[in-house]
């Protein structure tokens, strides 16, 4: 009769104590806390940084509309319009424009010549030291605004630039007015056009029946995949470091007479995952807080930023179903990658081995991510991608929410993923103790499977 039965390795007795201790000590660890604070600040600063970048970009693109005659310091502004659109001073320049500043161009000193009114050379030859000439020349694909001053000019380069911008803007308005287009029409004309020439009749019909278009689906797929990729990569390095610290501190034997391997592994993994998830949640809250301050305290217009920055749009944008699906899926994925990281961490015998362990997890997450990118671009492969791990961790929820797979396939995918988590836990229960006690193990999958034999 064998009294030492094997059933005990799957006991979770003591898991809660390991979890609490791991989390508490991680929160006391200066290195982890500093890294977390840095990450939270980075996430919080993302929106303000994006705003500054966008404003800087829009400053240059919107500068034309904000330039007035008052900004241009010159005596006279000549405009020679060589395009086929006629410019009329009464319509192009508002009656109260110019002359507000002593040195600025007054409205009456703006002289517009249309094509054929005057010779270009004569106009250039007649320029005085305080005059500016802007010639509108039609090109093959656009109109050029050429700013010209006399050889002995006293006009600043800035005023010359502002003058060309000003003329460009009033020419644009005149042009659209003559085409009887309003601002929206102009924007519509300028908007890009996307083509999808590879679509068959069936694909077109299918896409019409989906809840979202292919591009929306791809956007969702990439968004969710990146979330998993970032959190899984981050948490795996933390877990591996934490487990290996325990192994290198020669604590395995002392611990293993008090707690069973599965409880030890799971407590450690969940403790670290809680820390990482807590950091991410704090980062998201920080992002919302910075957005609140920018909108309500600083009264800034953030409409142009759209969904830029850190937010929970993926979780909140698809109703209760989306929230449940994405939350459950992210937990399953993190558990799977977390447990694998824990096992790999226990296989590291030296600090240098940790990088190899991180590489294994990163490689698997990258396979999942790029597999998702690949399958995401192929309409019919959404089902395969949703069922084959590790791609399924990244793909299944988005494919289900986008209507690319049905509930049955999605539940099947979840079942496979949960089976993987349980399988990894059982593998961990069998190997964690042996690997922790081994001084020569390496973070390789074959080492882990070999450890399961003993």
């Amino acid at each position, binding site marked *: 009769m064998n*009294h030492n039965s094997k059933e005990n390795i799957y006991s979770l007795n003591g898991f809660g104590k390991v979890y609490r201790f791991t989390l508490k000590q991680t929160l006391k660890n200066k290195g982890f806390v500093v890294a977390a604070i840095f990450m939270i600040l980075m996430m919080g600063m993302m929106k303000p940084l994006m705003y500054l970048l966008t404003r800087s970009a829009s400053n240059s693109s919107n500068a034309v509309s904000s330039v007035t005659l008052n900004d241009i310091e010159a005596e006279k502004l000549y405009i020679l319009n060589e395009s086929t659109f006629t410019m009329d001073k009464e319509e192009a320049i508002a009656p109260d424009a110019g002359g507000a500043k002593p040195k600025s161009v007054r409205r009456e000193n703006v002289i517009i010549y249309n094509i054929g009114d005057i010779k270009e050379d004569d106009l250039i030859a007649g320029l005085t030291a305080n005059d500016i000439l802007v010639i509108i020349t039609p090109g093959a694909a656009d109109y050029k605004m050429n700013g010209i001053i006399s050889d002995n000019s006293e006009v600043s380069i800035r005023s010359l630039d502002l003058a060309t911008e000003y003329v460009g803007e009033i020419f644009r308005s005149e042009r659209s007015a003559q085409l009887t287009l309003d601002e929206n029409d102009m924007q519509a004309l300028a908007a890009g056009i996307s083509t999808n020439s590879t679509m068959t009749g069936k694909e077109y019909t299918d896409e019409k029946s989906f809840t979202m278009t292919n591009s929306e689906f791809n956007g969702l797929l990439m968004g969710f995949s990146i979330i998993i990729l970032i959190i899984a990569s981050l948490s795996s390095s933390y877990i591996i470091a934490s487990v290996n610290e325990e192994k290198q*501190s*020669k604590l395995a034997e002392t611990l293993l007479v008090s707690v069973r391997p599965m409880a030890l592994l799971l407590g450690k993994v969940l403790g670290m995952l809680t820390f990482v998830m807590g950091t991410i949640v704090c980062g998201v809250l920080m992002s919302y807080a910075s957005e609140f301050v920018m909108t309500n305290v600083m009264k800034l217009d953030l409409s142009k930023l759209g969904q830029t920055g850190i937010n929970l749009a993926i979780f909140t944008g698809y109703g209760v179903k989306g929230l449940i699906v994405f939350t459950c899926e992210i937990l399953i994925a993190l558990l799977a990658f977390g447990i694998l990281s824990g096992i790999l961490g226990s296989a590291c015998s030296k600090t240098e081995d940790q990088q190899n362990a991180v590489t294994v997890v990163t490689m698997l997450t990258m396979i999942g991510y790029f597999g998702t990118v690949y399958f995401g671009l192929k309409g019919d492969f959404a089902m395969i991608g949703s069922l084959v791990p590790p791609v399924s961790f990244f793909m299944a929820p988005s494919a289900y929410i986008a209507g690319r797979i049905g509930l049955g396939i999605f539940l099947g995918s979840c079942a496979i993923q949960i089976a993987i988590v349980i399988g990894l836990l059982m593998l961990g229960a069998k190997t964690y103790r042996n690997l922790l006690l081994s001084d020569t193990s390496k973070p390789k999958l074959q080492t882990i499977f070999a450890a399961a034999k003993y």
Partner: protein
Amino acid sequence: MGLVVKDLFKKYGEKIVVDHVSFEMPQPGVYALLGSNGAGKSTTIRMILGMLEKNGGEITWNGGPLNFDTCNIGYLAEERGLYPKYTLMDQIKYFGELRGVTGKTLTDRIATLAERLKVEEYLYPEKAEEILSKAGVLDTSNQKKSTMALKKRQKPKTADQLSKGNQQKIQFLIALLSDPELIVLDEPFSGLDPVNTDILKEVVREQIARGKYIIMSSHQMEVVEEFCTDITILHRSKAVVSGNLNDIKKSYGRVNVLLKVEQDVAAEIQAVGAEIISEKEYEYRIRVTGDEQANQLLRRLIEKNIPVVKFDLSELSLHEIFVREVGDEAVESQQ
């Protein structure tokens, strides 16, 4: 019924590391597992504690399975370890809680053991001043100047701030936190200075007096002889000697003679067929075949009117039994 280890067997691939080892601890006491490095002691201990799966054999505790659900086990591992950067009190409490000791019981046990093992100043840094003053280690005359030093002393201590000996005492404290029935001590005194060795020995004696089952693995034979009633010597994964220490010694007979005289008696010793092991200033260590040869030697010395200062006939020491059974290779590996 105590602890029964029967036909314990373990192999890695084709390599047998524990080959059908059996022993029993029917009553409280100290059982020694001896052997050279790689003989299978730690593997045997790990299997007893359920840390390693065995390939064969049976381990029972009071007739049932042995694991930390069925038996309160305290373990001081050969590989000493503490979390280097965590405070001592945090990790001691963690290990205590893992063993199911909580609240006031845990606090009281930590305090009692800290006092017995003389590690209070590290576990209660806020009391360090008082403890060190009492011990006469701290000079309180410059107390005002040493505010900074005081604050530093009062900061919770982490394991990496302790000497190896003190870390070992903390691990010993952890092993005893749950007031275990079965205590497994793997090389408990290795690396300790004489003062700390005595402190630990005193605590081990207390545990023996309280009727605990103790398994001790050690290379220090004098320590084993001091504490152990039963032993098993492992050699190349097999148990070569096993049983009660006195019985084992008796089985080898009384073969050691320590003779002190005031002149050279080498010829007399050789004349009775005894073997001189060593000699220093007419003090001879002699190996005889048994009581008869020893008596023959003593009679011969008396007959020749050679004054005998000391004549001590004794059994083989454990060290000698170990060397005899395990051979020189073990001694070399230990050295």
